[in-house]
């Protein structure tokens, strides 16, 4: 850049500013100045460039800049290189993606990509890479592919083109149509220019993750290139880096190969890896050389783990890593621990790793927190039944001195390891109680919830747990979480130890009571419940308990007061059966994935490149590897899944397979199998009615020539009341009416029966007359299929049976809940990682008068289905983010999160549902696709 005086002065001015306020003032003054200048018609190119430069500098310093967009585009259009350069820079840094002006930039890009001057072509490619809007992906991909594949192009252009494609591919995989050109770029991995090879390999790595086996050929190229670099000593004069040939390329190739199964190249690969590992046996002298050499080595070990983990080679690697983790270089210690954790997660016998357990434990005391973190990860990954006790003990010992940042993770990991590897109950209880006492402040409620769950679920544990609970309460210091666990456990199982000396009911109550004054409100609330349970458990101290409850009836805190009042009232009601029923022992929790695990996994976020492993035991990595090839974001996969879903969701679409029970459409008994057009229309209409009732509480369920069925539903999850109205549309009376509803199976997940106190159905129904019947519905657990409604009647001597699907699904038992945006995304991520209950569908957006209408309709649907919409949660204002919670009688409540992302440009809408119950997620997804379809 030729120096621009005004700019230099401005920067110097800013540097002189003493305070943030000074700087702010100077910037505002300049902004005002620039605004007036931009309004002048006589602005020349030089000045335009200068002012835009000033704006870029301001935004670098963090000041908000929202002018200069048009000027940036003007600069891009300029014939002068220097102005164009600044123009493109400003376009990528200042211009919002949604700006109308982006279109003009794209136009320039297209022109510049065909400029005879390679510098301008490169500039355009760089700008396209930085800006990478959807429009660029859609309209310029082909041109960029051309630039990469053109035989005459220079390496300069090819490199940039390859990376430009990579960026577009990552942002808009569905727009770049990678299938059409993916195979053609692979041969460029053999290009003589190292820079081109490197860039193309990066591109191919991304393609390999999306297209999987279609890119297999790339592995041949990668192995060939590696062999020539590692074994044949390929001369890469310009790319020797401290004696290592093209280390970046080697690393990239080694990484790429981790996305493929090794196949027949296994032995050749092992040869290459052996050479790399052998050459690293002697420590390099110079630091720079060591960096380069070890960068290759660590990646080689990672690949070795992938190719053949249980070979001798990996035992050698373990030895090498063992040396590294005691290295004087902190970086090498860090990487040694990290790579060893990878090894530990994959290797069958942990012995080569366990040998270093002492050193690794020492690393928990390393002076660098980064190293300490890696040591923790490694210990967590290498833990098995035999080493669990020692490792957990070490971790507990370190907990007290660990930094706060690490403590939470440590606590979580201790909790998981203890539960996973516990062989004795007493050990589990001891460790967990110590854990909550030590690290209670640093962990979420998940940990103590989980402890209670485990104790409730294992009868053998309960007696010992009670003893420890009482001990904990009596200890000089009792942490809040420990108090909660203890109170809960004694409240449930206190009777188990009541006969032991010093553990009489009165002693238990006293121990609990002594803790109350200093405890927090939530802990006191838990304790109150325990006291209430005591009233049932120990009639001998009921009066004392009542006195305690009574004291809290005047508590200032509403929650405490309410609990105390209710418990007190319950306990004083004159009824023999009430107390034992209400305060019955809690049933064991149903088996479910530990919340701890999901909490830990939620730390993993989506990266652009998929991880090849995660910290943790082998089982978790194996389960990952099975789902790795499926790319969740690939639109093709999503579309396929959506198709599949639609097929299962609409059995009526194919008349041949329609069976009476599962059809949403009514079928008469004597009906011929083939449907006449008229009936087909009726089927379609009926599906529409059904779909409408999925999000509206009343409406018509069936409208035939003879009768009409209306429905009215009132939901109070987990219960509901459904009213059905049968209207006679024919000209004659109908008789022998019966209306019955039955569930799809006998599991008892859903109970539906006629309401008790209602009038019997009339014997006959006159024309235009209406009969009604009410059903009581209770949702016991989340159920999969909607119940069936069977209506039979006789009209003019001809009996008719109608079978209708009743729009009552698991999704109906949902109430809206409002949570904060951050909570939503935290849970969203957590549920996404756990992948227990995700359903996704890409649906055709219904055609409405305008896009805005369509969005409004979407919102209404979501609201009608029982979701609460969270406003302003998504960066895209049209996206809908919603939360509901389904209540069942026996299985508890299930959260359900939904994201709806309409893409008006494609008239498609992507709906993703994540719920703590897979059946629920599916039910919601099925309903939505039916609603969409019917619209």
């Amino acid at each position, binding site marked *: 850049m*030729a120096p621009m005086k005004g700019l230099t002065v401005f920067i110097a001015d800013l540097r002189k500013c003493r305070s943030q306020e000074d700087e702010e003032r100077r910037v505002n003054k300049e902004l005002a100045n620039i605004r007036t200048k931009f309004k002048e018609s006589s602005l020349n190119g030089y000045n335009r460039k200068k002012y835009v430069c000033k704006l870029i500098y301001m935004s670098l310093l963090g000041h908000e800049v929202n002018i200069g967009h048009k000027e940036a585009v003007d600069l891009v259009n300029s014939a002068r*290189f220097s102005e164009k350069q600044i123009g493109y820079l400003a376009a990528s840094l200042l211009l919002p993606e949604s700006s109308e002006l982006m279109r003009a930039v794209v136009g320039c890009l297209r022109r510049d990509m065909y400029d005879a001057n390679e510098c301008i072509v490169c500039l355009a490619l760089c700008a396209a890479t930085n800006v990478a809007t959807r429009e660029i992906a859609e309209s310029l991909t082909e041109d960029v592919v051309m630039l990469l594949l053109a035989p005459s192009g*220079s390496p300069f252009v090819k490199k940039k083109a390859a990376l430009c494609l990579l960026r577009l591919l990552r942002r808009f995989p569905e727009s770049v149509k990678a299938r059409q050109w993916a195979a053609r770029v692979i041969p460029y991995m053999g290009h003589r220019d190292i*820079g081109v090879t490197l*860039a193309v390999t990066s591109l191919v790595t991304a393609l390999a993750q999306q297209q999987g086996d279609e890119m297999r050929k790339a592995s041949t190229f990668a192995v060939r290139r590696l062999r020539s670099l590692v074994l044949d000593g390929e001369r890469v004069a310009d790319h020797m880096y401290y004696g290592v040939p093209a280390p970046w390329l080697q690393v990239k190739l080694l990484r790429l190969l981790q996305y493929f199964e090794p196949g027949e190249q296994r032995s050749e690969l092992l040869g290459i890896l052996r050479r790399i590992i052998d050459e690293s046996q002697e420590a390099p002298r110079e630091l*720079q050389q060591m960096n380069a050499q070890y960068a290759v080595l660590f990646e080689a070990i990672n690949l070795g783990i992938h190719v053949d983990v249980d070979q001798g080679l990996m035992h050698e690697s373990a030895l090498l890593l063992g040396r590294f983790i005691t290295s004087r270089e902190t*970086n090498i210690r860090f990487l040694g621990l990290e790579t060893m954790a990878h090894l530990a997660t994959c290797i069958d016998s942990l012995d080569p790793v366990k040998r270093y357990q002492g050193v690794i434990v020492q690393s928990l005391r390393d002076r660098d927190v980064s190293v300490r973190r890696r040591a923790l990860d490694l210990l967590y990954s290498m833990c098995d039944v035999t080493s669990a006790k020692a490792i957990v003990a070490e971790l507990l010992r370190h907990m007290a001195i660990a930094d706060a940042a690490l403590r939470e993770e440590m606590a979580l990991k201790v909790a998981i390891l203890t539960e996973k590897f516990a062989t004795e109950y007493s050990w589990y209880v001891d460790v967990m109680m110590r854990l909550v006492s030590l690290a209670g402040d640093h962990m979420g409620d998940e940990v103590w919830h989980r402890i209670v769950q485990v104790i409730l679920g294992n009868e053998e544990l309960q007696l010992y747990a009670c003893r420890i609970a009482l001990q904990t309460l009596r200890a000089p210091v009792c942490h809040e979480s420990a108090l909660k666990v203890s109170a809960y456990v004694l409240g449930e199982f206190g009777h188990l130890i009541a006969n032991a000396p010093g553990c009489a009911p009165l002693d238990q109550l006293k121990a609990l009571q002594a803790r109350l004054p200093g405890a927090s409100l939530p802990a006191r609330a838990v304790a109150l419940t325990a006291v209430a349970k005591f009233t049932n458990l120990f009639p001998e101290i009921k009066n004392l308990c009542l006195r305690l409850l009574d004291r809290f009836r005047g508590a200032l805190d509403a929650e405490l007061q309410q609990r105390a009042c209710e418990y007190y009232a319950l306990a004083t009601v004159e009824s023999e059966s009430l107390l034992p029923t209400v305060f019955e022992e809690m049933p064991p929790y149903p088996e479910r994935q530990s919340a701890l695990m999901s909490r830990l996994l939620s730390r993993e976020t989506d990266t652009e490149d998929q991880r090849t492993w995660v910290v943790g035991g082998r089982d978790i990595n194996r389960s990952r590897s099975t789902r790795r090839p499926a790319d969740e974001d690939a639109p093709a996969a999503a579309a396929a899944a959506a198709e599949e879903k639609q097929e299962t969701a609409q059995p009526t679409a194919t008349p041949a397979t329609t069976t009476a029970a599962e059809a949403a459409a009514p079928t008469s008994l004597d009906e011929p199998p083939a449907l006449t057009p008229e009936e087909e229309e009726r089927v379609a209409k009926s599906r529409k009615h059904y779909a409408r009732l999925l999000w509206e509480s009343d409406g018509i369920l069936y409208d035939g020539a003879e009768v009409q069925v209306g429905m009215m539903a009132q939901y109070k999850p987990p219960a509901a009341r459904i009213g059905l109205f049968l209207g006679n549309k024919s000209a004659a009376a109908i008789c022998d009416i019966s209306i019955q509803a039955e569930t799809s199976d006998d599991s008892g997940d859903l109970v539906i029966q006629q309401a008790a106190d209602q009038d019997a159905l009339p014997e006959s129904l006159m024309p235009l007359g209406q009969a009604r019947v009410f059903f009581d519905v209770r949702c016991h657990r989340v159920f999969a299929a909607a119940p069936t409604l069977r209506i039979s009647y006789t009209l003019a001597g001809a009996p008719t049976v109608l079978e209708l699907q009743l729009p009552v699904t698991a999704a109906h038992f949902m109430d809206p809940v409002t949570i904060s945006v951050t909570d939503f995304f935290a849970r969203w991520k957590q549920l996404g990682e756990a992948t227990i209950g995700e359903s996704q569908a890409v649906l055709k957006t219904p055609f409405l008068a305008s896009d805005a209408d369509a969005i409004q309709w979407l919102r209404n649907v979501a609201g009608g289905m029982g979701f609460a919409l969270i406003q302003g949660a998504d960066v895209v204002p049209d996206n809908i983010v919603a939360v509901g919670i389904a209540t069942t009688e026996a299985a508890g409540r299930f959260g359900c999160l939904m994201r709806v992302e309409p893409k008006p440009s494609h008239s498609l809408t992507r709906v993703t549902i994540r719920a703590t119950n897979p059946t629920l997620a599916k039910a919601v997804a099925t309903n939505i696709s039916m609603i969409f379809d019917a619209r």
Partner: protein
Amino acid sequence: MIRSVLIFNQLGKPRLIKFYEQISASAQQDILREIHALVAKRPDTLCNFLEGSRSIGGSDTRIVYRHYATLYFVFVADMSESELGIMDLIQVFVEALDRVFENVCELDLIFHFDEIHYVLSEVVSAGMVVETNLSEISRAVNEAKRQAKPDSSDHTRLAISTLRRGFV
């Protein structure tokens, strides 16, 4: 991939902010502040790698940084990059700046903030390494510099091809 490249001085004043993902300007500043807080208190004997907080990407990101005189060079990368590779890349980037500015110092970066972007775009693009060969990088930058000179617009057609002739 490399998610972002940041240069800031010991006081946390930004000298270069480059993100390879779509992130709002204010979030970029927040990330820079957070990384500065993390990095500035670490003595040079500690390792060059850090784990990012949630907002940066959590345990799946590595903050790889190097400290030169008054400046911190920070590359934030995901797990698919080799940490040592990134370390070396920072070195290459700095050496490239050194060649372009002849003994680069913080002032060069302040007054030529745009050129840093051009140099960086020859080293990293789309979050991936473009080139690691120093002479190649400085040649590309200098060529563009030459083009930007007011009177050079007519010679440009041959420029790179002549430049490359001796090399390929």
